[in-house]
């Protein structure tokens, strides 16, 4: 399926209900479009730089009627290049994450099954907490969330797989010793996974899931924040410090959750056999 590039560039959201193979192909297409837009932005900046230099030279030489419009057009061009597809270009790596997730799930999903994906490239911050930061002069720190991916698909065993990825943003503002205002931003990631399982296949996992020692392994920069097993679903939540380990964390969380499910299946089989 061809993506609507113009809509993506202006609205910065990719939303679809389609098989995983289609989503993988779309991610490749978005990555290509982002690379093209990035090249256009660079080219436009170079042109505007040249125009600005020409305008300044014209102004110095006394040709103000050429120089002034040239400088104005160059400034407009710089602003346009800065704003042009900025969010998609800046966060094009998110396509890789979605592609990896879709590839991961492809071998356990029917090729005909539709997955629902909403991928946002524009940062939409929601304030969580705001407080003073006493370690620095006039210091203040705010915490935000930016939820950018939801993926839902039904797997071959009837499990509803729901994945959410959210950025956790900490913004600190303070005055340095020279009195200059500084802003430091640090971003971590939060990974949410919910597997709604059919009890007739996996039984009730509340007891059997707890029996496993360390069922969920994670990369070094990830920490499991919560694990909840109910009679109908498994919910896992983890935070990741290093962006490069985000996909690996998603994969390991899914494997960990399925280690509980597979164990539940084995327990159910044993019960039936005895």
């Amino acid at each position, binding site marked *: 399926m061809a993506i609507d590039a113009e809509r993506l560039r202006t609205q910065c959201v990719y939303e679809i209900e389609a098989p995983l193979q289609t989503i993988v192909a779309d991610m490749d297409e978005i990555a290509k479009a982002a690379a093209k837009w990035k090249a256009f932005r660079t080219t436009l900046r170079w042109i505007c730089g040249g125009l600005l230099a020409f305008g300044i030279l014209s102004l110095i030489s006394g040709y103000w009627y050429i120089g002034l419009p040239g400088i104005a057009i160059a400034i407009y061009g710089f602003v346009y290049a800065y704003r042009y597809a900025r969010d998609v270009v800046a966060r094009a790596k998110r396509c890789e994450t979605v592609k990896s997730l879709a590839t*991961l799930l492809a*071998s*356990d999903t*029917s090729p*005909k099954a539709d997955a629902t994906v909403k991928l946002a490239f524009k940062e939409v911050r929601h304030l969580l907490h705001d407080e003073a930061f006493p370690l620095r002069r006039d210091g203040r720190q705010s915490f935000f969330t930016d939820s950018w991916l939801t993926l839902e698909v039904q*797997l*071959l*065993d*009837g499990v509803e797989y729901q994945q959410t990825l959210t950025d956790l943003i900490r913004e600190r503002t303070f005055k340095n010793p020279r009195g200059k205002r500084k802003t430091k931003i640090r971003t971590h990631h939060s990974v949410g996974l919910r597997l709604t399982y059919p009890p007739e*296949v996996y039984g009730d996992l509340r*007891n*059997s899931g707890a*029996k*496993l*020692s360390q069922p969920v*392994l*994670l*990369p070094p920069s990830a920490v499991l924040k919560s694990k909840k097993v109910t009679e109908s679903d498994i919910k896992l939540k983890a935070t990741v410090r290093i962006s490069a380990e985000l996909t*690996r964390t998603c*994969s*390991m969380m*899914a*494997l960990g959750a*399925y*280690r509980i*499910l*597979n*164990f539940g*299946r*084995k*327990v159910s*089989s*044993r*019960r*039936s*056999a*005895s």
Partner: protein
Amino acid sequence: MNPMGCPRRTGFLFPHGCDRLTSIGCPDCQNGQVEDPYESRADRDGYDDYDTYDSSSYAGVEGVGGAEDAADFNEADGESLVRPEEEEFEDDLTES
């Protein structure tokens, strides 16, 4: 699930039957050379022995006893995990 499909277990997260009619060109069993592609997968980061649980895990689980793994996964389990897809072919030939 096609009854004439490959009998081997495939899958990344859980075992299920293979949809392929033949093992030729299959990336999972590598042209039929791998007996159990599900268990043999080497891309499960951090989980070296993904399909095996130690006997202590079963201890205390109500209605389950013993250390032996008598009811371990088999091909039939893999098949039963898969929900029936929309029927493409008519099953009951007596109707027509």
